[in-house]
């Protein structure tokens, strides 16, 4: 018996979502009274790999030579190393969403995504997940010997511990069917799925030239920037910033919405945020019904004041 967790890295480094998945695996392993085994294939250094012991990994299996974009090779790697696992846990990342379903089909294992808490019962595994774009919480039972789950973004905190883990190098068969030509990762930017604070703006900002203050506020807060759908459709901001039911679903600790009306499709993608703040000239904007704090006012006056105040207290 064991709990296997995918410890994904970027350029050889783990991110918060990785530690979150390992923490989750560790809490789940306690329920199952078993060990946590982390699996990696991202050329991490031993020092980096050992960081996983701080979140409860008992063993790390590691290999290289597999690209994250090669879902078939990655699936084969998991399948060759999971004979003992009752649960296989994936963080909320694009690569996970590519591997986990393949693995589920290969192993004929029940799989569920968007998971928000540790199992409420373990035989069979019963677990809560977000459904209907956050408008509902669904209880799912997994009826197979192995259960595969993908976590929801930012749904489970980090749980640190004083553990120790062994590193074991494993083999990987390299039967690739795709070629990775290039990869562009915006450097220094905080990814939306992981951000603890998001500053998001909508059509109320009137034009792309006005995003400077949004970026300044985001920088001061260590936040990621996002936008509403029409803003990305008109090309004021890149599609990768579009949040909502048909964009990215986010769940930061703090979501600040500036000049966004709060349409149902927008709210569906952000309503799992712990705290929401709205800044809008229209007191009737639907966002006020969902937000925790609000200012009825003009973004062009309020945001500069907010920037000033945050600079003052920092």
């Amino acid at each position, binding site marked *: 018996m064991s709990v296997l967790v995918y410890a994904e890295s*970027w350029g050889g480094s783990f991110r918060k979502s990785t530690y979150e998945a390992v923490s989750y695996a560790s809490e789940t392993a306690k329920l199952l009274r078993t060990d946590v085994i982390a699996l990696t294939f991202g050329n991490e250094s031993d020092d980096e790999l050992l960081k996983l012991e701080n979140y409860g990994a008992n063993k790390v299996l590691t290999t290289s030579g597999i690209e*994250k*974009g090669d*879902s*078939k090779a990655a699936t084969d790697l998991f399948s060759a190393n999971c004979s003992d696992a009752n649960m296989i846990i994936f963080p909320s*990342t694009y*690569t996970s969403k*590519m*591997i*986990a*379903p*393949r693995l*589920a*089909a290969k192993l*004929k294992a*029940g*799989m*569920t*995504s968007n998971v928000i808490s540790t199992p409420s019962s373990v035989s069979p595994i019963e677990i809560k997940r977000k*459904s*209907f774009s*956050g*408008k*509902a*919480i*669904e*209880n*799912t*039972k*997994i*009826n197979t010997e192995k259960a595969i789950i993908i976590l929801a973004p930012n749904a489970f905190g980090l749980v640190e511990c004083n553990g120790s883990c062994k590193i074991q190098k494993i083999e990987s068969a390299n039967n690739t*069917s*795709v070629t*990775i*030509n*290039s*990869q562009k*990762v915006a450097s220094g930017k905080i*990814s939306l799925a*992981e951000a*603890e*604070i998001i500053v998001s703006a909508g059509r109320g900002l009137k034009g792309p030239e006005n995003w400077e203050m949004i970026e300044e506020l985001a920088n001061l807060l260590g936040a990621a920037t996002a936008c509403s759908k029409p803003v990305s*459709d008109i090309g004021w901001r890149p*599609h*990768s910033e579009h949040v909502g039911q*048909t964009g990215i679903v986010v769940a930061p600790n*703090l979501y600040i919405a500036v000049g966004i009306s709060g349409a149902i*499709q927008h709210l569906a993608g952000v309503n*799992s945020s712990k705290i929401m*703040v709205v800044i809008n000239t229209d007191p009737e904007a639907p966002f*006020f019904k969902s*937000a*925790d*704090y*609000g*200012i*009825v*006012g003009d973004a062009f006056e309020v945001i500069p004041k907010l920037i000033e*105040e945050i600079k003052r*207290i920092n």
Partner: protein
Amino acid sequence: MNIIVCISSVPDTTSKINFTDSGGKFDSDGVQFIINPYDEFGLTKAMMLKEANGGKVTVITAGDITIEPVIRKALAIGADEAIRINMTPQDSYSTAVEITNYLKNSPADLVITGRESIDYNGGAVGGMLAEMLDLPFINACNGLHISGDTAEITREIDGGIENISTNLPFVISGQKGLVQESELRIPNMRGIMQARTKPLQVIEPLDNVQLTISSGFEKPANKQDCKLVSSDNVADLVSLLRDEAKVI
């Protein structure tokens, strides 16, 4: 080129989500159904590929007879034919198995699904299909160029994009970027008329397997009232976020 587009019929994005049988089942009463928005990007891309390279676009969906209006809409947008697998999908696996059963007998050059459905948000059918058919799979696909037997594909990765090449046949799960929002097609009168007579074949499921069970829904707790701060006292908002909410 023979393209299969997997479509899902989902509640309109403005729908209120309610449940019957004390949380057991989604209440479809009064709900409008639409083509899953992610699938619509895929369908439009399929139409463009067909227009450029020739071939056929077939939409396939697992569902009972009530979803036929959504299938007719896909035909009105321009798909050539449709397959309905006569079942109530129980989980991603049951859906993927039955679509695979069909594709094993009628192989496609390209299989397109949406990144996820906006109702159950499983996001798994595409990857499962690829494994069952032993094909390459690229998800969160936001760009696709095919020339001859090879394809250049971009996919979203966390914080960036990746460019991948592979050979036909393969499976993608698509999203915006595959085509732009402005390229989506609204059915015209002629399309709607033609859709009525296009072939819609109904086939029965063969395996009826299910690996997960949905055992009830609840709604998230309601938010408390919004605390309003005057725009003259922006500093108060900062204190509330720091001292009360403890998020900055």
